[in-house]
């Protein structure tokens, strides 16, 4: 349907090339035209003579010189004989050339247009773009409208959840993460939201599982210990951090619950097997023994209680740090936990506290500030 216009145009162009072949017209021959011209001149002279614009003698002289010129021309250019143009050889030649010309038009046109044109690019008149219903309007216009709306109404959680996947598809991952976070602030945390946010963060950082993303997946993992995504990304984070034993634990857990013949399951298995062996890594010994009994207990609770339990743990940690501020690991964990729990105010307070405690320890201070930056707690 769309291409009909192109076909019609091409057909018209070809027709114009074919036209003389179809019509076999007789154009005005050179000599005919010359005779016509000089005849016209003669009658012009006659009219002028009658109007009294020129004298009879002048007219006679002009007529004579015109006649002389015509005579000279007719001698100079003998009329073409008919056989010249109608010989079978000539006709074949005409046919072939006609055919070549007819073919040349679409070949040149389509060849060039294929390089420079975009036949399926529709017209986009402004009025239509503004009036079109949202699902049919062009993406950019809809996006512009929605962005403007959300800038004025950041509390519109549905809008935020609508725009986030669009950002993801457009490759604007940081914006997507921001939108997921905003959505979570309004609609409250949920497993799916944690997962979406975590993936957006990873994409935004070119595949690196940042501490922030790691925290997000830890939260998701706490909400559902069976979901494969958090396990996979946590394993990935551990692998990237060189904590291969941890990675092995996560992925082993994942494989234990996942259907074995899925493509993604096979991929995880391959990765697991590619992990450096346990004893080649020194770090894993220093790393904490994987999931503490306490954590295991929490993971087995129903979701609502689990959150409460996590909160309780975090509160406990905070209280402990209040009394003993010199636990750097503890502070870092607390900061991460607050961010995961979307409690930015508490996170900021904790950040100030932590910095105060390590004011004299520059390396610890640097670690705290690094983490704060990664967690987006304004440095």
């Amino acid at each position, binding site marked *: 349907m769309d291409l009909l216009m192109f076909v019609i145009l091409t057909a018209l162009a070809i027709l114009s090339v074919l036209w003389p072949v179809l019509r076999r017209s007789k154009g005005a021959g050179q000599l005919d035209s010359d005779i016509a011209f000089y005849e016209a001149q003669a009658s012009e002279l006659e009219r002028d003579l009658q109007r009294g614009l020129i004298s009879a003698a002048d007219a006679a002289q002009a007529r004579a010189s015109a006649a002389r010129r015509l005579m000279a021309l007719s001698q100079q250019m003998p009329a073409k004989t008919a056989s010249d143009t109608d010989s079978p050889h000539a006709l074949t030649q005409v046919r072939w050339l006609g055919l070549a010309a007819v073919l040349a038009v679409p070949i040149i046109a389509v060849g060039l247009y294929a390089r420079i*044109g975009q036949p399926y690019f529709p017209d986009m008149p402004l009025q239509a773009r503004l009036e079109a219903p949202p699902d049919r309007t062009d993406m950019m216009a809809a996006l512009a409208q929605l962005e403007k709306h959300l800038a004025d109404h950041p509390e519109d959680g549905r809008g935020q959840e609508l725009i986030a996947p669009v950002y993801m598809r457009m490759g604007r991952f940081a914006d997507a993460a921001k939108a997921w976070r905003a959505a979570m602030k309004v609609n409250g945390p949920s497993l799916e939201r944690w997962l979406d946010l975590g993936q957006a963060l990873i994409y935004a950082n070119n595949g690196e599982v940042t501490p922030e993303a790691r925290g997000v997946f830890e939260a998701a993992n706490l909400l559902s210990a069976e979901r494969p995504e958090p396990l996979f990304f946590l394993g990935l984070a551990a692998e990237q951090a060189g904590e291969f034993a941890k990675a092995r634990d996560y992925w082993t857990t994942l494989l234990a619950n996942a259907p074995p013949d899925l493509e993604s399951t096979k991929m995880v298995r391959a990765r697991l097997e590619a992990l450096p062996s346990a004893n080649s890594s020194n770090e894993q010994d220093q790393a904490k023994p994987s999931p503490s009994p306490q954590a295991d207990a929490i993971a087995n609770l129903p979701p609502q209680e689990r959150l409460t339990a996590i909160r309780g743990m975090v509160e406990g940690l905070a209280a402990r740090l209040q009394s003993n501020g010199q636990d750097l690991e503890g502070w870092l964990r607390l900061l991460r936990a607050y961010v995961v729990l979307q409690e930015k105010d508490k996170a900021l307070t904790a950040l100030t506290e932590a910095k105060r405690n390590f004011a004299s320890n520059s390396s610890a201070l640097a670690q705290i500030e690094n983490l704060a930056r990664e967690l987006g707690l304004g440095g």
Partner: protein
Amino acid sequence: MIIEAGHYALVLALALSIVQASVPLYGYWRRQPVLMDMAQSTAVMQFIMVALSFAALTYAHVVSDFSLRNVVENSHSTKPMIYKISGVWGNHEGSMLLWVLILALFGALLAIFSRHMPQVLKSLTLSIQAWISAAFFLFILLTSNPFARVGVPPMEGQDLNPILQDPGLAIHPPLLYLGYVGFSVTFSFAAAALISGRIDPAWARFVRPWTLLAWIFLTLGIAMGSYWAYYTLGWGGFWFWDPVENASLMPWLAGTALLHSAVVMEKRDALKVWTIFLAILAFSLSLLGTFLVRSGVLTSVHAFASDPDRGVFILAILVFFIGGSLSLFAFRASTLRQGGVFAPLSREGALVLNNLLLTTSCATVFVGTLYPLFLEALTGEKISVGPPFFNMTFVPIVIPIFFLMPIGQLLAWKRGDLLAAAQRMTVALIVALLFGLALAAWHGEPVLAAVGAGLAVYLIVGSFVDIGGRIFVRKASTSQMLARGLGLPRSAWGTAFAHAGVGLSLLGLAATGWGVEKIVTLRLGDQIDLGPWRLELTKIEPRPNSNFDALVAQIQIRDGSGIVTQIEPARRLFKTRTMTTSEAGIATLRMGQVYVTIAEQNADQSLDMRLYWKPYVSLIWLGGLIMTLGGGLCLSDRRLRIGLGRAAANKGKQKPNAQPHPVAAAE
């Protein structure tokens, strides 16, 4: 779909022009009428395709389709409709599309309306025409495609350059292009004549309407452009010797010479080499004009399109067509049969002198325009060749033309009598002298203005001496004279009017010497005298508009007896481009103009202004219109022209019948 279809139509037009450029030429070589005929049908279809393409682009501009880069860069949804349309050709890509549209239009007209033209001449001419259009199609599609799309269309455009948002832009470039491109037809005719070796009065008859048409449009275009610059740029000047203006003046000078030369060809079968040369020259200069404006080698108010890649492409086109045609000319000119002979003192002789003077003046403009460019390209040194150069070189060459114009009209073909012609001019001379003296007494200094005005009046009166002589015969009654006047060929009237138009323009130019200019600061209610008028600033008010905000001053103009009229000079701030333009307030009074421009409002509410009183200034453009009218009269005269050696006028001598006719002699 409309836009991509328009894009495709343009590509098809290129394909058709390639067929049109090659097949008929081959057909001519092999003497195959069918192949030659292809030139006509493809020329018509080529025009239809370009027209569709142009319509599609116009549609995109009108509906603000920002998926086209061209629309994004040059339009804005709030722009008034007329500028949405004129904005189509108010930019590089669109104006080139307009160029080829006109080119294709002329090709189609040539194909349709020349049934009596010999097939060889017609198909060769159309074939050459297609070479030109193919080159420009390629240029457009490869370097300046108006149909380039934007993947992610923005919701708003960047607006058209405010200077170009003016009714003048809607008219000026199309007129100029009609002129430029019109000369492509005469160029194609000349090339066809060189290829076929046939050039004679019949050829000149076929070329005549095209030359006239091109000349008329170019004249109108230049006049329009000059008026546009006059009221848009706000300096009260109408001709700046700007390279872009010169670029249109050069083909006009060459085209004017061509026009006269072609008449000699048609009537007397003479000046063949001149005519062919001028036809090539006129179009070459038109191409150069396009090059100067479009390549970006110039930085001036007109040169709004700039891109070096395009420049190189246009340069290649320039070299190909000018070089090619001149080579063809050099190769074939010697084979042109020389036609009618004439004495040096004759109409033909006068027109040869006319050709010489016009081409020389054209050469001075050429040097003045291009020398600075070459110098800058070679040494990097920037010099400015301004009015002083042209006043010292161009003016001394055109003054003799003004003097000789009326006299040349009175010389007989073949062999003329200068003394008799001069005697018949005495009337004109006396009138001019009296008029010049009267003006000098009335307006006073400068003397040069009075002398110029005298020359102008001599020219106006002299233009009608020939016609007067043919109408007023002794002892004829009024009705007889009227009949004689009506019986005169319209081309005779056309000639007289066109020449008188030159005189009118000259009068307007000369009168600028009596102008008054004042730079003042006025407050509300202040009055000031300007020439014979008294001006009062009566109102200052802001006036918002759809795409600009204006500050408007209202000024009343009075003479001794009361308020004559009022004008509203303004400054406009265009929001999208944050550019300010000045709108002059102009009132035409007694053929002169009061011209006022305003600056920003000062802190104390006063306004800085420039005030001008320009007596008779409107005659400059009125003259241009009259010239065009003359051209139109000549164009409407479809009759053939036959030159008569005025043997009867000098009965004492024997007609040179004894001599063999030159054509016969050449046999």
